């Protein structure tokens, strides 16, 4: 189990961090931590042994990887953008136009949920494992669609965010969708993604996974489904609770 | 005060959605052991025709609500009745092939799921009848229409899961 120090990934992360530090004026310490933390998490997600396990050996590891790309990194990034910097960028008409189009709740929700569902179609998922270019596209699409999905919930600019009830329904709907997919993977027979039934790889790693960790093909698929279902929903639920708690804290006109 | 009827109906339909989801879940759960019987007993062509009738009834219902016309609502009633007739014919054909609710897992899950759905269609028709006869409140039309669209939407899912997924 090795670390895959892919130069393009490292360079990309460094560039992103540099860009943030240069352009994001008026940021608080917490925001800086959040954004840079997101980059660190992204880096780990893509270069650590998780990546090796995901590519070849374990469906559940791959689920974990996508989970981070769609549900952890984009929120950390959005939370790290200072409102003033975002406002300045949004003043440009083109940018504002794109934002208006993409942040329509129906559109952003469909982008996030749709991307997740589409990539789990067996043919597409298996193709992405086999083809490197497609795989990169897959990961990018999770990041981008994740950012689009989370924007109406976590936009740095308050007026662009959804109202509390709408946010609850929006997030609950996404939670239901990922629960359905996750539950389907948990309860049905293994073999959705044949590449993981009999992975061809290093014998030592295989022994560790199958015997050491006790993850046979069936348990692996089950675990992947469970990850999507339970921790996935916890992310949405935390967002719901944070939104509701903030709503209760806000003062009300008498 | 906002209009009361639609929210109440929407909430009731939410509960019905979960209910049908559980029944469909049972069908999917047993699909493996039911598939053989399903493939040889179901009549996709026939069911498709009656499905089209039911979907058309949603359109006539929509027109009926928009125009407030008894004609369109009557057409909805007729199309819904044709759907039930078609279901009845399918059931009869299945009984003749010895496929019953007490037979195998296909019979168990198919008849329960489609039977409960058919009862919902029947209820919808009765509601329409009451409305058309003048006994019902005009203001209930929006709720009844919502109920009708829901029942049709559930049928689309059932049709896909039971018929299309068996043959496609």
């Amino acid at each position, binding site marked *: 189990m090795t670390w895959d120090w892919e130069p393009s990934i490292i360079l990309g992360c460094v560039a992103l961090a540099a860009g943030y530090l240069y352009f994001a004026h008026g940021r608080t310490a917490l925001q800086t931590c959040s954004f840079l933390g997101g980059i660190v998490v992204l880096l780990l997600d893509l270069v650590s042994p998780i990546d090796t396990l995901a590519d070849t050996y374990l469906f559940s590891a791959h689920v974990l990887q996508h989970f981070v790309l769609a549900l952890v990194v984009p929120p950390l990034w959005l939370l790290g953008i200072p409102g003033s910097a975002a406002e300045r960028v949004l003043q440009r008409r083109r940018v504002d136009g794109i934002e208006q189009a993409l942040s329509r709740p129906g559109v952003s929700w469909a982008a996030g949920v749709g991307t997740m569902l589409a990539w789990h179609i067996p043919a597409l998922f298996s193709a992405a494992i086999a083809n490197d270019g497609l795989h990169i596209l897959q990961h990018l699409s999770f990041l981008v669609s994740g950012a689009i999905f989370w924007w109406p919930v976590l936009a740095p600019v308050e007026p662009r965010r959804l109202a509390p009830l709408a946010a609850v329904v929006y997030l609950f709907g996404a939670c239901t969708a990922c629960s359905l997919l996750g539950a389907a993977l948990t309860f049905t027979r293994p073999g959705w993604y044949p590449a993981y039934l009999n992975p061809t790889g290093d014998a030592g790693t295989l022994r560790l996974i199958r015997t050491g960790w006790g993850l046979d093909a069936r348990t692996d698929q089950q675990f992947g489904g469970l990850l999507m279902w339970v921790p996935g929903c916890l992310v949405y639920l935390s967002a719901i609770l944070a939104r509701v708690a903030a709503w209760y*804290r806000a003062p009300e006109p008498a | 005060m906002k209009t*009361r009827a639609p929210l109440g109906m929407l909430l009731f339909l939410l509960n019905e959605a979960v209910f049908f989801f559980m*029944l469909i879940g*049972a069908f999917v759960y047993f699909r493996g052991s039911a598939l053989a019987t399903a493939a040889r007993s179901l009549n996709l062509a026939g069911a498709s025709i009656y499905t089209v009738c039911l979907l058309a009834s949603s359109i006539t219902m929509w027109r009926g609500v928009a125009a407030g016309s008894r004609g369109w609502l009557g057409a909805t009633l007729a199309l819904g009745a044709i759907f039930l007739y078609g279901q009845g014919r399918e059931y009869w054909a299945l009984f003749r092939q010895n496929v019953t609710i007490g037979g*195998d897992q296909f019979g168990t*899950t198919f008849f329960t799921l489609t039977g409960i759905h058919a009862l919902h269609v029947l209820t919808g028709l009765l509601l329409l009848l009451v409305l058309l006869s003048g006994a019902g409140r005009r203001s209930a039309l929006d709720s009844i229409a919502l109920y009708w669209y829901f029942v049709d939407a559930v049928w689309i899912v059932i049709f896909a899961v039971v018929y299309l997924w068996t043959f496609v």
Partner: protein
Amino acid sequence: MKGLERWVSTVDHKEIGVLYMLTALVFFLIGGVEAMMIRAQLSLPGLNFLAPETYNQVFTMHGTTMIFLVVMPVLAGFGVYLVPLMIGASDMAYPRLNALTFWLQFFGGVLLYISFFAGGAPDAGWFSYAPLSEKAFSPHAGLDYWALGLLLLGSGTVGSAVNFIVTIANHRAPGMTIRRLPLFVWMTLVNSVLILFALPALNAALIMLLSDRLLHAHFFDAAQGGSPILWQHYFWIFGHPEVYIMVLPAFGMISEIIPVFSRKPIFGYGFVASSTLAIAFLSYGVWVHHMFAVALGRVFISVFAAMSMLIAVPTGVKIFAWSATLVGGSIRFTTAMLFAVAFLLEFTIGGLSGVAFATVPIDWELTDTYFVVAHFHYVLFGGTAFALFAAAYYWFPKISGRLMDEKMGRWNFWLVVIGFNMTFFVQHLLGLMGMPRRVYTYPNLPGWAALNLVSTFGAVILGLGALVFICNILASLAFGTRAGNDPWDAWTLEWAAKSPPLPENFETVPAVRSRRPLWDVKHPDAPDWAAEGGA
């Protein structure tokens, strides 16, 4: 028969609320008699007071009665009575649906009890596991009555949930925003959404069971290709949210009562409200913890074990908030407050025993033992029932116009607390010693007889406490001191109405500018909304 005709045809929410409460009280007595029969049979090993088959019917009916014919209806009754008053409305959104849902629950209960006269009551436990519930193993009609009765009850409950949500959404007095809702109303709202998602799972399972039993289908019948595990999944997908359905309104009652008798607003209103949402969402992700002893796979049950531990957190937040409300308050120990404070302790004990079960190896050791019985009685009786006693003493003056007697209240309280804890605390020990549940007798192992005898004795004391409660109600109705509108100097809108309220509830609804509208009316120099309303 003018009086009877009025009660049978009423659509007034207050009268329907009283109908719910009275019916629930009658079934409480019946369920209590069933409990006494159980305790009598178990007081010593080897008794034959009840034949085994009869015993099975009695404990099944005791559980089914207490859950479906007592707790759920009485919570609906308090909700139906209080919610319109608390939000300044004149009735529920759908008064006739309100009546319908009551009568559905009433006749569901009647149907259930007819089974005793129709070949025997259901006897497969309140959750009727397959394959025991199938025709092959339970040929008599008792389980058909159970399923049909529950279908009626479940439909009624769904109807009342719809009614609550529409009422709270559309009929609030001007100025009563969602963030200013009394917590009882907020909990009722969240609870109603829980009901909408949970009851249909039960209804589906019951339809499937009836198909199996009456139409020879094979949903749960393993011999013919069905799956008994499917019943367990479906039942508990309902069953776990159901336990929160039985406790959230009780949380709401406690959230109203403790602040008033501490003379302080509740601590952390926002936390209590948000944690309620958390409980509601999480409650759908823990059901498998009722099935840890079924071979479902370690990874699978581990995830649910983690979730089950997590769900204890939002409830803990609430206990903390209620306790913090007490701190620094000027406490008034009325009977209602005694029960409310006792609730905190008893429910916490029940919660702790519950969380113990989240640890899978502990569950493997203790499932289906008396430890479970102890756990759920602590949360359902020590929790919900204590909250109901508190609510009875607190709102009886509003409903009847008279105060309940405080002296009898003290007797009621101490008999119930001592009796309850004596009955059920020892059951933790019996469970740890290995005594299984649902057994009509047990062997004479060391300590078992003594503990069971203590438990039975406790049940007698508890029963006496319940009788004192009934006597208090009757005596207070006849002779109680007149209460006036606002005997407790409380703050929510129902106390602005007369006691009992006018048919239309209010002549004029007080202005609502904060969470405590009556405080604002009584303290125009220091109203809540002046202190930056909200939070």
